[in-house]
Every structure is written in structure tokens, then in C-alpha cells.
């Protein structure tokens, strides 16, 4: 039997978002899309 449209919840909202699309949508400006480069962490600027 066909399933009514509203009876399923789609966690991807119909879009197959890759890692880079997700980060781009969030406005993240990471190196090559998903790489953090700053080596020093927890140090006072």
C-alpha cells in the first residue's frame, strides 16, 4: 500500500547533502571544506 506523504519524516529533507554542502550552508570557511588548520589550541591570542 502506498504510504501517505506526511506519514514519514525525512531526516535529510530530500537532499543528499555531502559534508562540504553541510559546512557551506553553515557559512563555515574551513580549509578544503572540512579541515581545521590552526595548530595552536587553547592558547591565549
Amino acid at each position, binding site marked *: 500500500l*502506498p504510504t501517505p506523504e506526511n506519514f514519514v519524516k525525512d531526516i535529510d529533507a530530500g537532499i543528499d547533502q555531502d559534508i*562540504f554542502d*553541510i559546512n557551506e550552508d553553515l557559512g563555515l570557511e574551513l580549509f578544503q*571544506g572540512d*579541515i*581545521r*588548520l590552526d595548530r595552536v589550541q587553547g592558547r591565549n591570542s
Partner: protein
Amino acid sequence: LIGEEYRWPHTIPYVLEDSLEINAKGVILNAFERYRLKTCIDFKPWAGEANYISVFKESGCWSYVGNRHIGRQELSIGANCDRIATVQHEFLHALGFWHEQSRFDRDDYVRIVWDRILSGREHNFNIHDDTESDSLNVPYDYMSVMHYSKNAFQNGTEPTIVTRVSDFEDVIGQRLDLSDTDVLKLNRLYNCTSSLSFMDSCNFELENVCGMIQSSRDSVDWQRVSQIPGGPENDHSNMGQCQGSGFFMHFDSQSVNVGGTAVLESRIFYPKRGFQCLEFYLYDSGSGTDQLNIYVREYSVNDLDGKLTLVKEIKEIPTGSWQLYYVTLQVTSKSRVVFEGLRGAGASSGGLSIDDINLSETQCPHHIWHIRNFTQIFDTPNASLYSPPFYSPKGYAFQIYLNLQSLPNVGIYFHLISGANDDQLQWPCPWQQATMTLLDQNPDIRQRMSNQRSITTDPFMTTDNGNYFWDNPSKVGKLAFFPNGTQFSRGGGYGTSVFITEKRIKSRDFIKGNDVYILLTVEDISHLNSTSSQPAPTSSVRDLCSSVTCENGGICTVQDDKAECRCPSGEDWWYMGERCEKRGSTQDTIVIAVSSTVAVFVLMLIVTLVSVYCVRRKYRKGTSSKTPNVAIENQYAF
């Protein structure tokens, strides 16, 4: 990334921070299992090591590349990043890998179309030359989980990456699993010679039948054959595609009387984890009453012949096709796996055949949804399928919905349905993680790239009309019928409309012999809701730590029956104090040393000045005492 300093130890300490979504925590643990199966990289909860990976939920999915030796090294699995291949991708960065298309020789294999790239994003397509990045003597890999997809950073609808071999255009950017080459590179980089949870894989192509032995205490031997007149016509590994090869093992039940047996024993294994999953394909061309018994033979100092224990009896085997079976084993010592074919009643026209055995120290899936004649279903317009009903270990009844109505995308959804235990269960259903895996039926478990997605039932989730989404299906579900006419209630479905594409499902071995398998596991992951990514704590540990809150990412551990905070630290910083509330750094030490030096210097200066002043005063006094017109009497000299 070139440089030994960027390597992690083979066992990587990690922390799953509380900020992570509970589904993401479960997915990360599943990703670790894939690493354990294919590589020698292991993961353990952080216990105070100098450097560790802190997996947390920030904005987006990202990682650093390699071990930066900064103490707490962050890796973000943000919203929508809770996919197993995404987690594997980010951990490959952390292990020291760049993206595949940033290899120095990538222009030999792909063409970057610069004018189709979003303005300002061109830097994402820069390459690392071979002084910075080592390709580890492995060919360029279009199948890598580290490759961009063809539309990465596009400014329109045309691809930004065009593969020089056009067949790979839709292959790049797969988010299924580590490719063979990903595994090869990782194993080369970390000098792996074996993997942690893999034990054996056998497709019977070689005459040594993987070291398996025939028993002398049975009626007949299993035979290594490539076909049987009564079926199967070919093996399962190659499905008859390779002329002159494609072998399997066959027990000819025609040749023995009822009760006759054939016993095949595996080589000896030395388990490490104490739990195993045995997987194999079985074909019954006999009477339909033949039976396969699985035993384990465990050896001990006192029992050199080994103690034989029956683990599973496989009866009522469907005839005429290869069937996938999983058997859970719990072996802790030196042992063999034993396959016993047993002739049943009735006239036999063939027997039992086995092929593509895999043994690994992993958890077996709870259920198998076997979809036959998949190609025909696929070609039917607006097709969609519901699985048979299954029960989770907790007793929840569920069903899977496979949606083929929106091709080229294939959707998959998890539904709770009404079941026999509903009165005894907790509603809304709390924190059950459903993992749905489309099985890549490659004969070798290590070479599979199965497609997997997980969802978790959140008891607080509501629908538009205010009902709890995961409430009792009899209350919030809709009426439905099984094919036999039985009525039941089906709750709302939760899943993805983009589980896999038509092209991908037709690739690799997702469809084999026109059969598709969807593996299902539903487990209670409520223990991951708290700070529980640390090793499953004993109750006493949990009690002692329940009243202790560690600040700044510290974790509570029990030492000498006392709860203590272990505080995070880096190369040049650390937290300290009973609750990790104070921060220290090498800069502080320098400041203390310099200020102490200055203070001592100032003190010494003051002492010197005072001394000089006193001496001069005394001298002046002495001089003035020698002035004339003063009569001095009874003077003493010291």
C-alpha cells in the same frame, strides 16, 4: 601528511562529549567497529593520555589533519553529520589524510573546471605537493571515501570535477565505507599487518579450502565443487561469472541415509574479544528437511580433543537459492568452528552447500531482510516495500519501509508497529537506535562497502498534531495489514529519502543473484545519553562519580575508592585543581620564574643600597670623629 610526528598511537584515546547527539554517538561507535574490522587502528576511551580526540558537536563536520599534539584535539560531528561514512571521513583526516583530489598528481586523473567553482572557493581545490603529502605508492583512488563528489563547491549545476575516465564520474564522492585503497593506505601509513576484529574469510576458491579439515567421525566428506546437477548451478562468490572457477563446499545428502552426517571443521582460531559473528551463504537442494548444525570446538589444557558445543541448528532451509545466515558465537579460547550437515527425512535430490564464510569478532545484525527478485521490483513503477515485522531485543515490534517511488533516490524508513509486548514496554519508545544496512555482498567482509544509516527514537519528539512520534503505535499509528490479512497499527516512519541512488545500488554487489539483503539492528543506546562514552562504568564507579562534576572537559575516574577528576592537558597548557577549575600553562611558569628573578634582584639591590648607605654613614662618622679640637679619652680599638 608526511611526518611521523603527525601519527597517532595504534590505539587512539577518545572522548565523546556530551554535546554530541545521541544518534551520532552510536554512529561513531559503529564507525570505530569498521576501523577495527579493516585496519589495526583501535579506539579507547581517554584515560589521561597526553593527546586524545575529543569528538563533539559544533557547527558542521570537520577535523584537524593528523595528530597535532595539542592535548585535546577536536573533531566535530555536527547536525546532519551523523552518517557512518562522514565519521570515517573525518577520522581519516585526524589519522593524517588529506582529500584524495588534493594529491599532487590529481590532474592526471581528474579535471578541475575552475569557472564552475563558487567564487572565492577555488582554494578548496589546491593540491599538496609530494614534499608535504605522500601517496604511499598507491594509485589515485576514485572510490576513496576521501574524494570530493563531482558537484563540490559548484556555482551552478555543472560538475566542478570531471574524471578523465568517464565511468568514474558518478563514483567519486562515495560515502559508503572505506575503499580498498583507503584501507591499503591507512595500513601502510600505520604499519598494520593485521586487523583487530577480522578472523577469516573463505570463498573456497583455493584447493586448501582455507585450512578447513574433514572429520573422520562422520558418514561422508564435504566436497569442493563448482556446480551440482540438482543445484546450485554456480557458487555464490562469483555467481558463475568466472569460467573454470567459483567453488563451494557441498554435502551430498543423497549419498547417506537419514541421520547421516558430514562434518567440516575450520582451522584453529584464537579469539581476543570473546564474541564473534559467523556469516555464510547456504543452499539447500536436498529434501528440505536436511539440517545444518553449527558447533564450536573449544580447546583447553585438560581437553586436548576440544569440547564440542552446539551453537545453532539451522532447519527449514528454503530450497533452490543461496540464503544468508548469521550465527553469534561467544568463544573466549582457542577453538574451531564446525559445520555439520545432517540428512533429514524424505527423498533427497541434492544436499547442502556452503560458500562465502566470514568470521569476525563483531556483533551480528539482529535481523536480515531478504528481498528476492529485486530487479523486477526495481523496474516496477512506483514500487515500495515493507519488510516483515521484527522484534528488537527490548521487545519493540518494527518494520522497515523501502521507498522506490522517487528514483533515482531510494528511501528507507523505520516504523514502530503494534506488537505482542506493547503493554509491557515504555512509551514513547526511548533511545532505540535502528541501524539499517544495505549489504554489499562481496565475499570478503573486509572489501565490502555496505551502505548504512542509523536513526534513534527520541521519546520527546512530537508530530505536528502534538502526539509523541514514538508513542505506542496502537495509539498514534495507522491501521495496516500484513499480506496474510492480519491487522496491525503502524507508527510514523523515520528515515531518509536519499538512502542510496539507483546507480549506486546497481554497483558493487548490492544486488547479487537478484537478491538484496538489508541488515537490521535495533539496540538500546540510552546509556550513551549521559557522559557515558567512557568505558562502561561499574555501578560503584558511577555512584562515586555521580556527585562529582569535573569542569573544563575533565572526566571523573575512581582511584583507590575515591572519585577524582582527570583534567585535560596539552603540550603547553593544563587544567588542575580538584575539579579541573584552574588553568595552567608554560607561560604562567615563565611569568613566575621571571617575576621571582626580578623580585630577588630588587631585594638584593635594596640590601646592597642599604649596606652601602650604612657603610658610608659609618665612614663619615669615623672621619668626623678625627676632627681637631676634640679631646678623646680612653679610646678602644677593636
